[in-house]
């Protein structure tokens, strides 16, 4: 398979077919990210179009410091975040639900079940998928975005900070709270199933 870097050079030289191959290679990942962020396939489809067109127009400036995939991914994340900002009518200060409880000595109160081996299983249970979907949808928006960008999409803290305009400590704090909330939801799912 021809490497992205080779296709990129051809696309920069004006070869449309090379650019189309790059789009084909990365469109699914970019669409998946934007659809998750925007919670709408229709909005995601528009953002993906905007992002790839912007990438095409910026091709002459792209020096290949990062991989083409990461670059277009960041462009799409920025477009998705811009769209989310437009959607916000009022800023909501909310905290995610869930998280461990401690006694006065700082020890965990509840028993902890280790369901981590299930994370590596071959297929994911449809009911577990639903539970995760619901828990992720319930996260306050700012926590959800950070979680998606970091844990699902794999962006660095610095990249998220650049895209959202928030500080790295604030991003880490939100990510931790989001993970605790989602962990609690998965924990409830396994506890309910066992009972």
């Amino acid at each position: 398979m021809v490497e992205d870097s080779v296709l990129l050079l051809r696309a920069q030289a004006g070869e449309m077919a090379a650019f189309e191959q790059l789009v084909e290679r990365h469109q699914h990942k970019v669409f998946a990210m934007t659809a998750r962020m925007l919670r709408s396939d229709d909005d995601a489809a528009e953002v993906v179009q905007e992002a790839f067109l912007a990438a095409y127009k910026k091709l002459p400036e792209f020096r290949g410091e990062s991989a083409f995939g990461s670059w277009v991914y960041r462009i799409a994340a920025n477009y998705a975040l811009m769209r989310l900002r437009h959607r916000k009518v009022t800023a909501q200060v909310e905290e995610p639900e869930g998280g461990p409880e401690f006694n006065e000595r700082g020890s965990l109160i509840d028993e902890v079940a280790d369901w981590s081996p299930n994370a590596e299983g071959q297929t994911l249970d449809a009911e577990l998928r639903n539970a995760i979907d619901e828990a992720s949808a319930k996260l306050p928006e700012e926590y959800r975005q950070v979680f998606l960008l970091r844990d699902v999409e794999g962006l660095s803290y610095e990249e998220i900070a650049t895209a959202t305009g928030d500080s790295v400590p604030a991003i880490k704090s939100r990510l931790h709270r989001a993970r605790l909330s989602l962990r609690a939801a998965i924990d409830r799912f396994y506890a309910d199933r066992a009972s």
Partner: protein
Amino acid sequence: MSATSTCQDCIDLLLDYVDGELPADTKAKLDEHFHGCQPCEDFLATYQATSTLCRRSLAKKMPDSVAAKLHDFLRHEISKDRDGER
């Protein structure tokens, strides 16, 4: 942090612990706590598994119709752009 760390101390610092960004002495205290505290060891394993499970669960594929529209859109816009340059 005090000489011995509590479950709460450990869980508050989990993100930096998992990222490997804690100072060596703090990390050593957490390591010691995890080795002696089964609930926290299990909590750590499930905290890490949460990211993996969510990543797998939230996977999504672009529908073929959306992909086809994307390619039509790009061809149209790019040819407009190129015509404009001439």
